[in-house]
């Protein structure tokens, strides 16, 4: 499986993401700069975390209007898997590839800690290496991760099983509605999540609970 990592000014988790993809798939991902419109043939495109464009206007708003996003949209419509983590999730909702919005944390504080996630849909291309209902550890680091969607949208994504990860009971760090931590689009090939699975993939990280996500998306047997 081939993968690609998007790079934009202000994204700073790209190196972590490249390391995780390389270690888990055995192949280094290609990198794509924000002005590129000709994306190479890959199976998975990842938009990593950070603070693209200094979080100006709204988190991810400027990045979502860069030329590369039109190309990613076309790839997603063609069925290529797209993963957005943290700022990547914010960019995907701003670009309209995922429903809802990510707002300032209810606490108004930047949160940087480990939380627990419940895998509420283990039947997606991003979560099949996990068991349904499994509780996994995962780090979070964000200021604007408070997921919001209107009642109608919320009902649609809940009914369709588009909620893939929820913050496990008592660990919601940001006030997200229904404890939503990660969602997929209706087709199931675009996933956005606030937590950072790429930062918990090996012993040096103190655990490898995040590995299953990449093992699922890259079609490799989870170690």
């Amino acid at each position, binding site marked *: 499986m081939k993968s690609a990592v998007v790079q934009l000014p202000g994204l700073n988790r790209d190196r972590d993401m490249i390391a995780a993809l390389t270690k888990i798939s055995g192949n280094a991902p290609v990198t794509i700069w924000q002005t590129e419109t000709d994306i190479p043939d890959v199976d998975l495109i990842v938009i990593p975390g950070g603070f693209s464009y200094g979080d100006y*206007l709204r988190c991810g708003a400027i990045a979502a*209007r860069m030329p590369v996003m039109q190309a990613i949209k076309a790839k997603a419509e063609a069925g290529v898997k797209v993963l957005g983590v943290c700022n990547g999730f914010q960019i995907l909702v701003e670009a309209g590839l995922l429903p809802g919005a990510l707002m300032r944390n209810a606490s*108004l504080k930047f949160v940087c800690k480990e939380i627990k996630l419940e895998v509420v849909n283990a039947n997606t291309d991003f979560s099949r290496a996990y068991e349904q209902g499994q509780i996994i550890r995962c780090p979070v680091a964000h200021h604007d991760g408070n997921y919001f969607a209107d009642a109608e949208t919320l009902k649609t994504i809940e009914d369709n099983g588009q909620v893939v990860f929820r913050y496990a009971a008592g660990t919601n760090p940001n006030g997200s509605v229904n404890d939503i931590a990660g969602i997929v689009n209706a087709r199931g090939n675009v996933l956005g999540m606030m937590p950072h699975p790429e930062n918990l993939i090996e012993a040096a990280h103190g655990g490898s609970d995040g590995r299953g996500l990449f093992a699922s998306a890259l079609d490799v047997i989870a170690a």
Partner: protein
Amino acid sequence: MINARVTVTLKNGVLDPQGKAIEGALGALGFEGLGHVRQGKVFDLQIDTADKAKAEAEVKAMCEKLLANTVIENYTISLA
């Protein structure tokens, strides 16, 4: 030249933790009888045209495409 002002506010029902914090701080300063403080954004733009209708249409497109996130925000436009 037409000057446009765009005001972006959160939709009703969307939680505004910053507005709530400001409300609390105003209360701490002794302002009483205060409720429902909401924080928004203002953008001032200059459009190089004399055609008001055209300017308004253009600013509306800017709001829809970038200045507001219509999932959570409303916007109003005033021209001068």
